[in-house]
Structures are given as structure tokens and as C-alpha cells.
């Protein structure tokens, strides 16, 4: 067991971990942050996407010890402290961009990374960026709309 320290959603945390402890295990089992999900074991589904030092990262495909000293952001840190949803989260609700909710944390974190890199993506750019995030419920239609809307581009609102 080795001590690992990082900041998660702005809060310094440290714990003793095994070498084989993945970041997602550190978050879910160690910190109780169960919003980050595990949907596959081949690094394809993207339900576990978090930000490590500002970059989208599959938390099931990186060791906790490789995140020593890193700044990690998870879905639990996206809303304001008073519970107000972030613009991306709000767009997902307004545009019905989620159904069962299991892929949603990864989708939101990937969307946030995309808009950070590319504030006004085209539809094709959104779809391409989501290559590593699989959703089985929505057919992606409303996810793409939600992300376009969150970028400030005009999109008809689903919830109207």
C-alpha cells in the first residue's frame, strides 16, 4: 500500500492504495463518489470519464497512483454548491439528454471537456468527440442537441 494524494473537486484527499487501484475505485470505494460509473472493462463506454488536470480521462483506465498530485474533477463537482445545475447539466435536462442516467456522468464530463477545447462545435464535431462515450438509451439525438444548446447555439428545446 502506498499513499496517494490529489485534489478531488477542489478538496485535498489522500489515502493508502494498492498499486492496482484504479482511479475509479479510489473515487467510488475510497471517497464514496459513486457518480462515476463503470460500464465496461475495455475502456470504451466512457461512463467513467472524469477530468484529470483539466483533461477528459477514463477513470477506469488510469491508476490512482498515476494521479498523485493531480487535480481531479468528477460529476459531483459540476453543480454549484447550492445545487444549481451547470449550464451543461441544465441543457441535458432541458433537452432530455438522458434516460437511465448511467452513461450520463461520463457524457456530461466529456461534453464539458469538449466545450472547453471547442466552445462552439458543429454537430459533426460533437458526434466525433463522443466516440468514447456509449449511450444505449437516447440514440444520442438529445445528447447532441443538449451539448449544442449548452454551447449557446440555437437548438429547439425538447421540453417544450
Amino acid at each position: 500500500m502506498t499513499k496517494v494524494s490529489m485534489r478531488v473537486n477542489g478538496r485535498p484527499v489522500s489515502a493508502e492504495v494498492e498499486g492496482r487501484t484504479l482511479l475509479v475505485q479510489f473515487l467510488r470505494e475510497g471517497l464514496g463518489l459513486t457518480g462515476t460509473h463503470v460500464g465496461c472493462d475495455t475502456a470504451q463506454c466512457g461512463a467513467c470519464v472524469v477530468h484529470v488536470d483539466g483533461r477528459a480521462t477514463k477513470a477506469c483506465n488510469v491508476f490512482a497512483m498515476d494521479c498523485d498530485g493531480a487535480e481531479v474533477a468528477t460529476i459531483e463537482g459540476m453543480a454549484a454548491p447550492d445545487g444549481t445545475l451547470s449550464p451543461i447539466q441544465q441543457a441535458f435536462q432541458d433537452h432530455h439528454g438522458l434516460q437511465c442516467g448511467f452513461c450520463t456522468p461520463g457524457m456530461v464530463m466529456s461534453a464539458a471537456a469538449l466545450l472547453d477545447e471547442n466552445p462552439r462545435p458543429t454537430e459533426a464535431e460533437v458526434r466525433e468527440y463522443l466516440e468514447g462515450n456509449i449511450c444505449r438509451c437516447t440514440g444520442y439525438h438529445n445528447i447532441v442537441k443538449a451539448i449544442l444548446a449548452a454551447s449557446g447555439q440555437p437548438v429547439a428545446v425538447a421540453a417544450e
Partner: protein
Amino acid sequence: MYAFDFVRPTSVADAVAALGEADAQALGGGQTLIPALKQRLASPSTLVSLGAIAEIRGVCLDDDGRVCIGGGTTHATVARQAAAHYPALAAMAGRIGDPAVRNRGTLGGSLANNDPSACYPAAVLASNATVITNTRRIAADDYFQGMFTTALEEGELITEVRFPVPQAANYQKFVQPASRFALTAVFVARFADGVRVAVTGASEEGVFRWTEAEAALSDSFTPGALAALSVPADGMIDDLHGTPEYRAHLVRVLTGRAVAAAG
């Protein structure tokens, strides 16, 4: 996964020392290795993370105009930082895996693994790049030795790869619909002294040069120059996603498209 010790050296020298231990294994970005560890397909005693070694990260130009990329540089960094120097290479790096994979996966990790469907081997081979390790320099033509097999010795680390910049180049990737690795992909690079064509995803022997196409394209760098050529299906990969004949056909189609796109 099996239990292992995890070390995170900050220099190449320390990493090489750590890799000297029995059953130690290097960990680049881990995007292929970690899934393999989860399946218990590997059982290293020690995993030597290369993630904290600053000296093997980065993109620069050397005095000969070659693009030099540290072995620990992520695909995302190459996509951003090599774009001005070698656009075809940057574009290739920008289409490996998905954005999250590109933020972790590294050049050195990809080359050390030499997956037969990986993108980087095609770029390295077509560019006639030089693979630099902690002990030596290896020409691309000597480096790739078949599926998952390379010239690397035990404990040898890729520190850098130097890419001569061609006059024109393009990478055409036809994705396998599930993994999104290359079902077949072709990197074409046109240099003053000739054209190099490297094919990945297709052959049971891993990445290879299509020398007939190179000769024809060196005479005339047009898609039409390939008209009379064909690739034998013998030795091509046969799986759920494509027959050897299909892959052989794709090699020709994609080479033509790469030539057209490279201009």
C-alpha cells in the same frame, strides 16, 4: 487484475533501473495495457509508470527539420503541437481512439506494443522515422518485426521518435466498427527521394510497406498510378469484420484516397 508493485520514477535512468527487476513492465498511458491487466492477460511483478518522466514528453523540431516527439507524449499533445510542422502526423494522432484515450495514450506506448491495428506504426514506417531508445537508434524499417513484436530488448525504453517531414502526406483510416481501431489504414508520405506507403490493420504480420505502390507513386504521385496494382490477400487478417480479400481491396482504395488527399 493481479497484484503488483507500482513505481513512478521521474527520470529515464531510474525507470530503466526499475525495469531491470524480474517481471517488471513499463506502463505508458496504459490505454491498452490496463484493459489487458484487467483481463489478467499480464502479471507483472512491478509496473513502472513512465507518467512522471518529464524528459520524454514534448514535441520539437531538430536542426535537420525533423519533428522530434518524446516517447511519453500523449496523442492529444501530438495532435496539437505537431500540427504546424507535420499536419498529416498530427491529424493521425488526433484520430487515435477517442478524446479521453488520446489524453493518456502515448507514442512510445503504442510503438512498444505494436498492435497490428494501431495507427502510429503506419506513420512511423511511412515517415522513415527513427526510434530512439535509452540505448540506441533504430530505423523504422528495422523496428517493426511482426504483430506485437519489435526490435526492443527487455527493459529498453523509447525515449523519442524523430520524424522526417515529407513534402506531402496523408493518413486514411477505415475503422473497425466496434473497436474503432484501424480495420485497414494507410499512411502515404512523399519525400524528395521517393514515396513510402505503410499499411496497418491489414496484415497478420503487422504494419508493412507496400513497395509496389511506392515504386509506382514515386514515378507518378497520382491515384491513377495504382490502377494496375493489387495487393495479394494471402497473409491478410481474416476476422468478423473483414475477409483477407476485403482488406486487400481496402489497401488499394485507401492508398488511392491518401494520395488524392495528400495532393
